[in-house]
């Protein structure tokens, strides 16, 4: 895995604290699996030493990458100052993404988590007529990318914590309500649907609990502080069930041969084994979100 140069093509705000950036890599990105990410080195200096991970929001026809980022700290603050023509250095596409199947998709996004679901939605729209999307955020102005999402999906259920748009409360509460009303018309059994979720730790953990209690196949994209982004340093771990017991097909594949024997749980890396995991594979996750 070699880092490649990427030139900024566009970098514009799409909300008060959120930007959309298009990058032209020196080698075009031919393909990426939804849920994969790029790891961006912002400067060659000694400030902002670590790379920053961002989901691939979109790949353009010419092989450019688009990301959508929320401005939170030093790195993303710096990113807002990047101008078309400036260069950064990227590693990617990295990690194991979402797995698409024929089950009826229900997508749940928390805040900027929509950035991790857009490419998936785009791919799903090619095979599914009915896709259900539940985006949630603190407030209306943090519901990013809605126009893009509306183009790809007709069934959108919104929740905001302050009630400024959609129902008032957490998106995971909205999800529970949604599931209990079985609004999903073509679906007879819960096993005929699949939940895809991306968002802050507290939110993905809540979705994991819903998935387990209601026995719904669910894929979660996790976040963790990263170093290398490619499995060298073991910084970005999350707790998973012993791989040997994990029945989930695709992810078990990614983890194959790495079982640590008879332990009841073990660490997996978010960068290499994830970021997408089957809910059934995960142990309860601690919420260590800084900005959560």
């Amino acid at each position, binding site marked *: 895995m070699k880092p490649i140069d990427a030139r900024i093509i566009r970098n514009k705000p799409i909300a008060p604290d959120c930007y959309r950036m298009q990058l032209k890599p020196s080698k075009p990105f031919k393909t990426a699996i939804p849920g994969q990410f790029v790891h961006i080195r912002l400067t060659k200096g*000694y400030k902002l030493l670590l790379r920053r991970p961002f989901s691939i929001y979109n790949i353009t026809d010419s092989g450019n990458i688009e990301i959508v980022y929320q401005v939170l700290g030093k790195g993303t603050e710096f990113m807002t100052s990047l101008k078309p023509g400036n260069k950064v250095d990227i590693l990617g596409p990295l990690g194991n993404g979402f797995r698409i199947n024929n089950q009826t998709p229900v997508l749940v996004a928390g805040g900027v988590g929509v950035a991790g679901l857009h490419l998936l939605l785009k791919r799903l729209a090619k095979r599914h007529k009915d896709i259900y999307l539940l985006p949630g955020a603190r407030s209306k102005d943090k519901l990013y990318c809605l126009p893009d999402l509306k183009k790809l999906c007709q069934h959108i259920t919104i929740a905001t914590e302050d009630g400024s748009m959609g129902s008032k409360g957490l998106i995971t509460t909205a999800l529970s309500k949604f599931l209990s009303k079985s609004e999903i018309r073509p679906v007879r059994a819960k096993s005929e649907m699949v939940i895809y979720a991306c968002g802050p730790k507290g939110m993905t953990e809540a979705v994991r609990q819903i998935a387990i209690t209601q026995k719904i196949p669910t894929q979660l994209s996790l976040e963790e502080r990263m170093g290398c982004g490619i499995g060298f340093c073991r910084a970005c771990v999350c707790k998973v069930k012993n791989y040997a017991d994990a029945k989930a097909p695709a992810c078990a594949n990614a983890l194959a041969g790495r079982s640590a024997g008879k332990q009841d749980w073990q660490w997996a890396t978010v960068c290499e084994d994830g970021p997408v995991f089957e809910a059934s594979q995960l142990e309860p996750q601690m919420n260590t979100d800084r900005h959560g």
Partner: protein
Amino acid sequence: MKPDTKVKVGPLTLKNPVIVASGTFGYGAEFSREIFANINKVGGFITKTITLKPRRGNPPPRIVETPCGIINSIGLENPGLERFCADYLPYFSRFKTARIVSVGGEEPGEFNEIIKTLARRKGIDGFELNISCPNIKKGGVSIAQSPDVTRQIVSRVRRLTGLPLIAKLSPKVTDISVIARAAIDGGADIISLINTVSAMAVDWERRRPCLGNITGGLSGPAIKPIALKMVRDVVTETRAPVIGIGGIMTAEGASAVQVGTFNLIDPAGAAGLADGLTKLLKKRNIKSLRDIIGTLENPV
């Protein structure tokens, strides 16, 4: 003509002085062909530290960025000796560079057991004794803080192997040259320094430490001046062969160094430094790196 970048450090001959530091490149297994080629370009490759039994390491977050550095608290997560031999060693031993296994433990006996097993295996060119990890509770740093324990561990291991032995020291001591002397007396061939510097970072908004383990080890450019001073202390006091570690991100001024944090930022970085060194020597018309090593002069 291609300049000669070969260096000798104690009994180790390296094709160039750039060594991948322990813990920043895994074990070299499962890597792509590209990574394989990169490792073959560097002068040496040191595995993540292995211990006798598997270790799970610390809870996340395990890494945080600080000014000009990072603090990590991986906690020596590793698969243990048995699985290292079964799953990783066969691949590791194929690298065409100096293949060094980093060995750690909570007590002296652990080092012995590991070396005893590994000394019988092929495809290893040396050992680095990690007596200085700040991220484990027992042993770890406390070993490298005691000249007696350091001497004892090294001398017991020395009897078990003829391969080059590197003792990796912690900066968390009052006089590093005393510990270096003890390691050399115990039979170490080379001293490597420094391991990370004990440190912590706080997230004032959440009023919490940034790391799951609360404290960790600082690495990166921030520690380079500390490392340089300690290397100087050890060299002037003991004349022992030394490998410098800490904050290396460029090729200038290298004699024999380990590169850690930079691998996390750029997986092709260490290989790039090795290439860069060749170019630098060519540009300065230096035929052999050995001609300039040890030529740093004290100001008069």
